[in-house]
């Protein structure tokens, strides 16, 4: 049985469906919602169960709805637990069929993968993962990941653009793009590799910290540590840096590799998007942030920044822009960089602006701040009796791993050309960007 869908009818059902979605209400104002119209439509599968792609919108705004339809008798099972995906009945001259959000239908999602990849990829299983409202996230056979966009962008999506261009210049420390579904000048879906065994860097960092803090606080090395009377001071006879280095869970080697991967990323971004001389504006934001910080040493740092000759401040490149331990993944093939996302929620969460240009030092400062933050996170819920020792060790851990990360970065061939010629200027910028990052964090209280 086939259906030649009445797209106007489907669109009306889709409008009503969208009205019921909370995310949609926040994505478009009420007056525009009332004026939505069907922009384009396309049947992806006409035999039952049917599948069509609708793009609806108003003005510059565009939304994608994937609509499926089936006979009523079989739909109940398909939508079990996802009944809210139902759009309503449509008629094909004879018996009515029911239309619904196709994201709820495994069979149609498998069909969608074939369509999006031009028939190159087939899968036998699909699962939906919790996702941000701007898109649906789908995992196929635990090896492919599809982001099917609901909110469409007229301009090139930074996420898609960055992934495709980095892949093109041979940067392979990422989840490689497999297919980009683009029609009518709109990115509709992106398929990339999925490495289920890859883990966020933050989890590795917490594992390392757990080992260190337990090792030290329990006196497993044969030395029972008593918290120092002077809060924040290491106990007598303790060298926190040495303890960090001696801990079995020491992460420094991993951080060195992450630094090298970051350097490769920056070189690839420079190749893919070009690099330019730094200018005053490169660190103007950091300068004002430092000035506003009011912290001890801020005035001196601000004065030092003011004395920096922009011409000696290295190059600007397209940045990752949201670089921290949740955006890097450890996999069996090494570190992978993720989170080249243009999702508005990222920007809203901490004020970062993915995809912008700036000094490579900004990404480095973001990661160093993230290392510092995760060390703070590990201190949460430590017993008070251990707090003094644990705090000292966590600080030493952060110092050690920041240093390892930066060492891995600067010792990568070719990357120094992106940095200020004078290493002291790099350190200065690093400090300033870290202050700026910390202020952003404090303003939003986002996770590191």
């Amino acid at each position, binding site marked *: 049985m086939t259906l030649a869908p009445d797209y106007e009818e489907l669109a009306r059902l889709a409008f009503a469906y969208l009205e019921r979605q909370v995310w949609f209400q926040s994505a478009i104002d009420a007056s525009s919602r009332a004026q939505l119209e069907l922009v384009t439509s396309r049947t992806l599968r006409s035999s039952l169960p049917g599948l069509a792609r609708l793009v609806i919108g108003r003005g510059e705004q565009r939304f994608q709805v994937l609509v499926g339809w089936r006979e009523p008798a079989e739909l109940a099972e398909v939508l079990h637990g996802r009944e809210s995906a139902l759009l309503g009945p449509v008629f094909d001259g004879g018996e009515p069929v029911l239309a619904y959000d196709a994201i709820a239908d495994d069979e149609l999602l498998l069909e969608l993968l074939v369509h999006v990849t031009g028939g190159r990829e087939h899968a036998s299983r699909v699962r939906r993962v919790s996702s941000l409202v701007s898109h649906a996230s789908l995992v196929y056979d635990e090896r492919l990941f599809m982001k099917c966009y609901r909110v469409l962008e007229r301009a090139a999506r930074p996420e898609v653009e960055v992934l495709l261009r980095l892949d093109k210049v041979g940067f392979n420390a990422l989840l490689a793009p497999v297919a980009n579904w683009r029609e009518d000048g709109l990115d509709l879906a992106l398929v990339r590799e999925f490495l289920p065994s890859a883990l966020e860097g933050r989890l590795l960092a917490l594992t390392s910290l757990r*080992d260190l803090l337990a090792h030290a606080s329990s006196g497993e090395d044969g030395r029972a540590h008593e918290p120092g009377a002077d809060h924040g001071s290491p106990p007598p006879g303790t060298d926190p840096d040495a303890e960090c280095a001696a801990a079995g869970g020491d992460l420094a080697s991993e951080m060195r590799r992450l630094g090298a991967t970051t350097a490769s990323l920056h070189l690839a971004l420079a190749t893919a998007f070009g690099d330019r001389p730094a200018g005053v504006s490169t660190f103007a934001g950091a300068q004002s942030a430092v000035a506003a910080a009011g912290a001890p040493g801020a005035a001196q740092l601000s004065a030092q920044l003011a004395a920096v000759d922009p011409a000696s401040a290295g190059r600007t490149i397209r940045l990752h822009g949201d670089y921290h331990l949740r955006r890097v993944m*450890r996999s069996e093939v090494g570190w992978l960089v993720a989170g080249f996302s243009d999702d508005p929620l990222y920007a809203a969460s901490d004020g970062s602006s993915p995809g912008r240009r700036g000094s490579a030092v900004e990404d480095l400062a973001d990661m160093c701040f993230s290392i510092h933050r995760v060390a703070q996170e590990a201190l949460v819920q430590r017993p008070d009796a251990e707090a003094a020792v644990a705090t000292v060790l966590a600080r030493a851990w952060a110092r050690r791993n920041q240093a390892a990360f930066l060492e891995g970065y600067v010792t990568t061939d070719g990357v120094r050309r992106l940095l200020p010629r004078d290493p002291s200027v790099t350190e200065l910028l690093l400090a300033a960007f870290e202050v700026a990052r910390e202020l952003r964090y404090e303003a939003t209280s986002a996770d590191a």
Partner: protein
Amino acid sequence: MDSPIEPAEVTAYPHGWHELDDDPRWYERAVFYELVPRSFYDANGDGIGDIRGIVEKLDYLAWLGVDCLWLLPFYPSPMRDGGYDVADYWSVAPDCGTVDDVRLLVAEAHRRGIRIIADLVINHTSDQHPWFLESRSSRDNPKADWYVWGDDDQRWSDIRVIFCDAEPSNWTFDPVRQQYYWHRFFHHQPDLNYENPDVRAAILAVVRFWLDLGIDGFRLDAAAYLYQRDGSSGENLPETHAFLQQMRKEIDRDYPNRMLLAEVNQWPADVVDYFGDGDECHMCFHFPLMPRMFMAVRREQRFPITEILAQTPPIPDGCQWGIFLRNHDELTLEMVTDEERDYMYAEYARDPRMRRNLGIRRRLAPLVDNDRGVSELLHALLLSLPGSPVLYYGDELQMGDNIYLGDRDGVRTPMQWTPDRNGGFSRADFAQLVLPPLMDPVYGYQAVNVEAGTRDRSSFLHWLQRTLAVRRQHPIFATGGIEVLPADNPSVLAYVRTGSDEEGERAVLCVSNLSRFAQAAELSLGRWEGARPVELVGRAQFPVIGPDAYVVTLGPHGFYWLDLEGRG
């Protein structure tokens, strides 16, 4: 003339023997047990372990549940490298016994369902071997080209020196012949010249001699270094593979159910070449896996293991990896990065005496601070990862080592059988013993010995014996595929061994906690939704797998083997 075979005196152990099965692929399912004959048991009271001593302990080994013994070299030797400096391929060192003793050992082992493989040193001989003595005597004697000679020490200068602690060069000047000879190992171990067809024929004749005696196969020592070529690393050359294939062909033709196990300390991608197309070696050791198991436990995260698994290519049908925790050599760190080596030294060998060449000369128990939980976890990994496990004598007792002994003797001290004199190893005077048995309060024979271990049903020895029995019941551990599962906790390593048997599809989930703290992990087991996992050791049923992530909680260094088909 062979002497008559006398029945061996044996000690009764509670579990029975099993038949030697007529299976040409037995090695895929076997648990190997490596032992040093001179250190295992001294039957004749001269202070040195011998072949008859092994015969006397076969019932213990059958009880433990091993399927094949790997004997370190027992050939006549000046013993400057633990017998790997062979002076005569055709006989047994007098202190170890006789050829008839070997014949007896094979017969008695086979009666108990145990096979025997022998170390065969094919790359080099001792400098006391008659072949070398003749070769060095002049430049034109009949064996002048049986070794690799040169007028200077410059050729192949890019080839690495393996025993870098002891040897400055792979060449040594011979004052008799007034030439340099080539050696990849010690200078007293000249390399045979495999370009010479007479050498190849002689080695093949040695192989046939021992196979005729009933030996079930060989562990081929230093198999990667047989040939040299200008501009090469001198390792893994095509000519080497061609010779090994010739050896395999002759064995397959005339000696059914025998096998070759190659010692090739290389990366898996290079080692797989030694399987050929299933027409070269039956087994190869997987060297890089071993240090990474230790690294993973110390780091409390799985990536050292999963990384090397990801780098391990598939192997031809009928081939198998040999995997191990420790052996008679140092814990070799050749197949790790410099950074990883520094890490391993820092974590496992802070005392420089513990280090040797590019490795750590320590036994398992001291390496893990005598932590039984870690020992059990490491053995659980060993017995459940793809490959045939190779146990090292004494590790089943958690024996210690003596880092003050020279070379690798510290990990080759006498097996500890009883709390009696000399640990029950020998009736000889202490001063006569091949090596001093351990006598320290933690690892000494008074505390750690087979007698105590067998009496105490909660001992590590009993735990291992039971665990080996469980593994034997589930051949999927030996021959199944492996699929590493994602886990949201880096300290948890989870993989599924998959395959099929006469009852259909099988899947066993192996999940391990690499941390010394309790851990939880969510596993994606959607494919087995509806199945009720059954724990293989205690047969306890676990909650049914539902549509959501399956939560597993593990105690410190804990592990589970769960049958996902619910058949436990």
